[in-house]
């Protein structure tokens, strides 16, 4: 379970990005964090694994307080939190496999990682994950040779290779086309369910958030202004989060989409992958 207590962040420039956020994410919950850009979504998830140092408040992961850990303990804590980025943030000149294995860096020593001599169990897991996302045929391709959707899948594998209990996902679909966006969101959510991970997914696309998350938190100017189920996002709430706009269309469109979903996806790219995984799971 993740718990934020009065979390604050003020950047050196003076921007008050988080104004005391209290939040609790129980185990296994998929939570979407929505809000206009500049609301502080990225800052919030970066404060959790301390890529950004919070300036006030506390973060607990299973009763372990993260906000005052020393360097070594922080590294061990980071292993438990996988992170997925908007621009994929793969190391472009390393191969797909090296990128996935880099998720194990917190567990292996320097020389082992330097010489790429990872334990066979790590390699097995990496192959399994790559198979799961349908990329096991391109393990030795360089990351910069992949398409956006493929890169994001490698990013997902890297995060999962860490064997995390929490996923921090920062706008996973912002650089992808609509169809790939959905596939990626579905993949993330399915993997979280399979592995019983909790996840915080930053997303600015309200439709996608409603489609995939169990819980939605709306952030505005560093404060939580909505916290509830997806269908509680009424036009008033969206106005509260994003400002005045005609929201009816957005909400209605989501309903239609959800109805048309099951047929439309049958010939989607993901179908064979899922089948393959079922086979793997069945044996």
């Amino acid at each position: 379970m993740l718990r934020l207590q009065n979390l604050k962040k003020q950047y050196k420039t003076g921007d008050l990005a988080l104004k005391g956020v209290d939040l609790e994410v129980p185990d296994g919950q998929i939570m979407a964090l929505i809000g206009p850009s500049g609301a502080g979504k990225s800052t919030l998830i970066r404060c959790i694994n301390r890529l950004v140092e919070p300036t006030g408040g506390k973060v607990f992961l299973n009763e372990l307080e993260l906000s005052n850990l020393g360097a070594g303990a922080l590294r061990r804590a980071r292993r438990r939190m996988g992170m997925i980025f908007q621009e994929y943030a793969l190391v472009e000149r390393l191969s797909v496999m090296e990128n996935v294995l880099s998720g194990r860096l917190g567990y292996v020593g320097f020389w082992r990682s330097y010489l790429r001599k990872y334990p066979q169990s790590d390699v097995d897991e990496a192959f399994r994950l790559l198979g799961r996302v349908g990329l096991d045929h391109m393990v030795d391709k360089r990351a910069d040779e992949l398409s956006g959707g493929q890169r994001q899948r490698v990013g997902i594998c890297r995060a999962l290779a860490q064997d995390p209990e929490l996923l921090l996902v920062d706008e996973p679909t912002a650089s992808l086309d609509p169809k790939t966006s959905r596939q990626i969101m579905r993949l993330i959510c399915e993997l979280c369910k399979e592995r019983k991970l909790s996840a915080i997914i930053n997303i600015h696309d309200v439709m996608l958030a409603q489609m995939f998350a169990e819980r939605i938190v709306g952030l505005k100017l560093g404060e939580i202004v909505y916290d509830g189920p997806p269908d509680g996002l009424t036009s008033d709430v969206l106005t509260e989060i994003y400002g005045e706009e005609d929201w009816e269309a957005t909400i209605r469109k989501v309903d239609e989409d959800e109805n048309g979903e099951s047929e439309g996806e049958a010939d989607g790219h993901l179908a064979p992958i899922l089948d393959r995984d079922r086979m793997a799971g069945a044996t």
Partner: protein
Amino acid sequence: MTGIAYTPGRRWKKPPLITSPLLRWSLGLGIAVYLALALGTTEIDWGRVAEGIPRGLRFITGFFPPDFVTRWDEIFQGISESLWMTVISTVVGIALSIPIGLGAARNLAPRPVYYFCRAVLAVSRSFQEIIIAIFCVKLFGFGPFAGFVTLSFATIGFYGKLLAEDIEDMDPVQAEAVRATGAGWFQWLNYAVQPQVLPRMIGLGLYRLDINFRESAVVGIVGAGGIGATLNTAFDRYEFESAAAILLIIIAIVMAVEYTSSFVRKWVQ
């Protein structure tokens, strides 16, 4: 297990950078043999090196503090000579490199002119300043005039080549547009070519000023004027405190020139 799914125990090794094993091994072996030969044939007189260590230490302690005073007159004379040489050789070098650079641009010059100018640039770039300086001293006698000719000649090679390349790379559409108005050759140069290459050329000129100052410190070693001669004497006499002072002055001036030129470059663009 259906083969489509993952196979536990599948090995993974990072694919080598060079895929052909023959090439990989022969390259590795070649490098090893070369290094062994090179290090093996490098004669190092360890006795002499050991003897030099206390002298090296004395040189380092010469920096704490350096002695600006004893040889101040010579140092001042040398530094100012270096500075004049730098300024006039940069100006003259750039002035001469403009016709040569224009002549060496494939898209401007007729063939014979092009080949002649390219040859001048090639000769100027192949030889170290110091070699040119030796000959200039032979021709013009000792003193800063020889250094001035050397640095100007070197500047032509550097600046002319870059200018020629810049002109060859410039946007032909814009250049044609001006020519289409019926402008003469010189007008065309002035209106079409100059605005496209000028800002970068000013930046490069300042950069060359910086290089010329550094080089002006060495041409003195062969008698072509500047601070190099003073420095050489200081080392010959083992006056490490004075040598340290000279080096610090050189470093300070280079830093000042670099700082000013980056400032001017920002201001020009």
